[in-house]
């Protein structure tokens, strides 16, 4: 069996929804053994969120769950029982990394905080992804992706180019704060594992969802500190140089950027050298920006005659940086992505054959691989509790009947 990048590493996951599961998925997809703990009966909350196959709710047919939990061994375990806690400690003993994202204090209240777990396994790297970190006045505060996104300062900047002050600041599509926390947590965990070679010991990794977005705010931060406490918002237009915007076209939208002189000239050529382009108001980037209200509809008129694919393909061929605003459908049909084999298909006993987004990176020696589809609820109970931990099948039956697993 070909060695994978993270072969030999065992990760234990006690998390739901996005942040913890995506972090663990990053390990699983590069060959680590990932054991995912779910609540008996109900399982990960993500199983009950859309999109569902054929729009029929079913815990084994949630697209979000299926994507986030590839390559993992799912088990059920009830940590509210003493036996459950003991089983958990058996798993901790043999794990390198433990990823947890329950609400703050929950594990501590169960007697399973880092101070306890490091006695069970001094080499354990425990990764806690929390809303605001393990310390500080908000450490016990609740959050959701929406609240993390807005409290990080990013919300206030969106949407770009807003004109209506009566509409609220906007969250990005998807669950961005959760994903950013996951990306940071995964790197930090692997970093801690690396440190273990030097120190022989594990450690506690503290990831705050709020903090993970903050480095993104590079321009607003520097504008605040270096431009006299300037406060950026969705309504700020001081950065604007035209054209540098989303604009409508025949079958949707494109992002038009033709700010540099050469780019603008080539864009004008692309549009067939229209007479209006000779207007003195459009002869340099400053005047184009100042007269954007007049210029915008002229460009739009041309865009509306062409599809986003046509516009971006011909523009890019002429070194004009125009990109399509791709929908999910566009992405699945993209010649570029399909040539690169970005989407991967996998079969699932309940969801059938589906295409999934594939690798975020390509490693030449130890490629990302979709070996195993997402687990059915409790699918690996026997393999983990019996084969790995040495319990008997009889015990498993009794533990199930007692609500431990």
């Amino acid at each position, binding site marked *: 069996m070909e*060695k994978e990048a*993270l072969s030999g*590493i065992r990760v234990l996951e006690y998390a739901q929804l996005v942040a913890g599961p995506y972090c663990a998925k990053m390990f699983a997809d590069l060959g680590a053994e990932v054991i995912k703990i779910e609540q008996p009966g109900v399982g990960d909350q993500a199983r009950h969120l859309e999109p569902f196959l054929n729009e029929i709710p079913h815990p084994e047919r949630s*697209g979000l769950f299926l*994507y986030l939990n590839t390559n993992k061994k799912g088990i059920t375990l009830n940590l509210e029982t003493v036996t459950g806690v003991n089983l958990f400690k058996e798993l901790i003993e043999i794990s390198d990394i433990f990823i947890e994202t329950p609400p703050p204090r929950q594990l501590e209240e169960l007697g399973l905080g880092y101070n306890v777990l490091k006695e069970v396994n001094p080499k354990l790297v425990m990764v806690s992804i929390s809303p*605001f970190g393990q*310390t500080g006045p*908000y450490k016990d505060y609740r959050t*959701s992706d*929406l*609240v993390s996104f*807005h409290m990080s300062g990013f*919300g*206030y900047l*969106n*949407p*770009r180019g807003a004109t209506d002050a009566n509409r*609220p600041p906007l969250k*990005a*599509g*998807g669950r961005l704060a959760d994903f*950013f926390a996951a*990306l940071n947590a995964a*790197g930090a965990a*692997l*970093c801690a*594992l*690396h*440190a273990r*070679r030097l*120190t022989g010991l594990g*450690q*506690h990794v503290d990831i705050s969802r709020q903090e993970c977005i903050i480095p993104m*705010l*590079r321009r607003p*931060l*520097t*504008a605040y*500190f*270096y431009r006299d406490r300037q*406060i950026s918002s969705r309504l700020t237009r001081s950065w604007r140089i035209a054209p540098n915007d*989303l604009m409508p076209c025949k079958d949707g*939208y*494109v*992002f038009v950027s033709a700010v540099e002189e050469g780019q603008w000239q080539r864009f004008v050529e692309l549009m067939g050298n229209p007479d209006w382009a000779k207007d003195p108001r459009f002869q340099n980037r400053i005047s184009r920006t100042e007269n954007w209200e007049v210029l915008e509809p002229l460009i739009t008129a041309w865009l509306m005659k062409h599809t986003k694919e046509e516009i971006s393909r011909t523009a890019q061929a002429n070194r004009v*940086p125009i990109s399509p*605003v791709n*929908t*999910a459908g566009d*992405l699945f049909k993209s010649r570029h992505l399909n040539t*690169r084999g970005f989407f991967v298909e996998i079969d699932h006993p309940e969801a059938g054959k589906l*295409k*999934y987004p594939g690798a*975020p*990176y*390509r*490693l*030449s*020696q*130890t490629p990302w691989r979709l070996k195993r589809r997402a687990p059915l609820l409790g699918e690996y109970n026997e393999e983990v509790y019996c084969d790995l931990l040495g319990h008997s099948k009889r015990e498993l039956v009794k533990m199930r009947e007692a609500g431990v697993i």
Partner: protein
Amino acid sequence: MTKSALEGIRVIDFGHVWAGPYCTATLADMGAEVIRVESKRHIDIHRRQGPYLNDKPGFNRSAVWNAQNRGKFGCTLNLAKPDGVELAKRLVAISDVAVENFAPRVMKKLGLDYPALREVKEDIILVSLPGFGSTGPAKDYISYGQSLLAASGIAATTGYPDGPPMSLGESYPDLVAALSAAFAILAALHHRTETGQGQHIDISQLEASMCLLPEALMEFSMNDTPRPRMGNEDDIMAPHGCYRCKGDDKWVAIAVATDEEWQAFRHAIGNPDWAKGERFADGFGRWSNQHDLDRLVEDWTKERTPYEVMEVLQKAGVAAGPSFNIEELVNDPHIKKREVFVEVEHPEMGKQIIYSPTWRLSGTPGRIQRRAPLLGEHNHYVFGELLGISDKEIARLEQEEVIY
């Protein structure tokens, strides 16, 4: 002295702008020795863009560049000269990792692609971070952050429910790629420790960003339908949104996830009559009537500041918090206690305030190891000490615009 997690790891950063540099800055924060390779021939756009200290331009006075490149050593090397390429190879030969985010053909044209680098260091880990990937029909597309937000599907999922796609105030595909790269590098280092093998890590910023949109992608994959834009709304949670508060352009984000939280919420806001009864009693009712519910919630929030709302609701166990502007964020008591922003002394910036490392490890904590380098500041350290080149030879190379 506490050890650093990545002590002993050396990274050569050929990157520019954000994707490569943010990746290596993350590693620098954790103790890796990162050498940023720049050139006077083509100065990084962030060095050429303000804000500058006191509005006075200068390559060493860019606030953005100095925040992003903290922790690194800096040298200059002209890769247009064959001698420059030779020196670059010698640097790779003494390094563990090399990072670049040029357009796909550039490293090959320079003679610094993976096969070439393997010849100087067989177990080198090379990381490439092109916008659209190294292969495929769109590989040579020019990709700015905003164009990647559009192309990766992010803009299509962002926007008010009744409106067109919208873009974001800051682009993040390069940051996603940078963080994915950092993880992949550490995975490759793990593999190298076990097997002695290096490898080439190739990351398309477009694809790395798509990995963050499974809801939209799986909706289409499963059902051939687009996922609608939802603004600040949620699939099922209600109240869930951004509500106006007292003050000028002040807003608070609130997300009530369960029926229990709803009970706590309505008690916390004083048990108004409208909140009693069946209409909003369960999640389905609340979601179905969310627009009415939002108006009623806003009647309450608009009498209060965002902090007041947060305090009342968090005490009741409900997720709520201000939509912070940058000033509020920087001065927030929690942010201050966590020391999210720290002061770093820089010869041309003076005291600069920079975000601290997001990776908090208890035993081998990250920290800003040193301030960002001046252009070419460490040429003598890099070429003299690390490569053993004499001062005289360095002077000659500077004159010939190789070290340039």
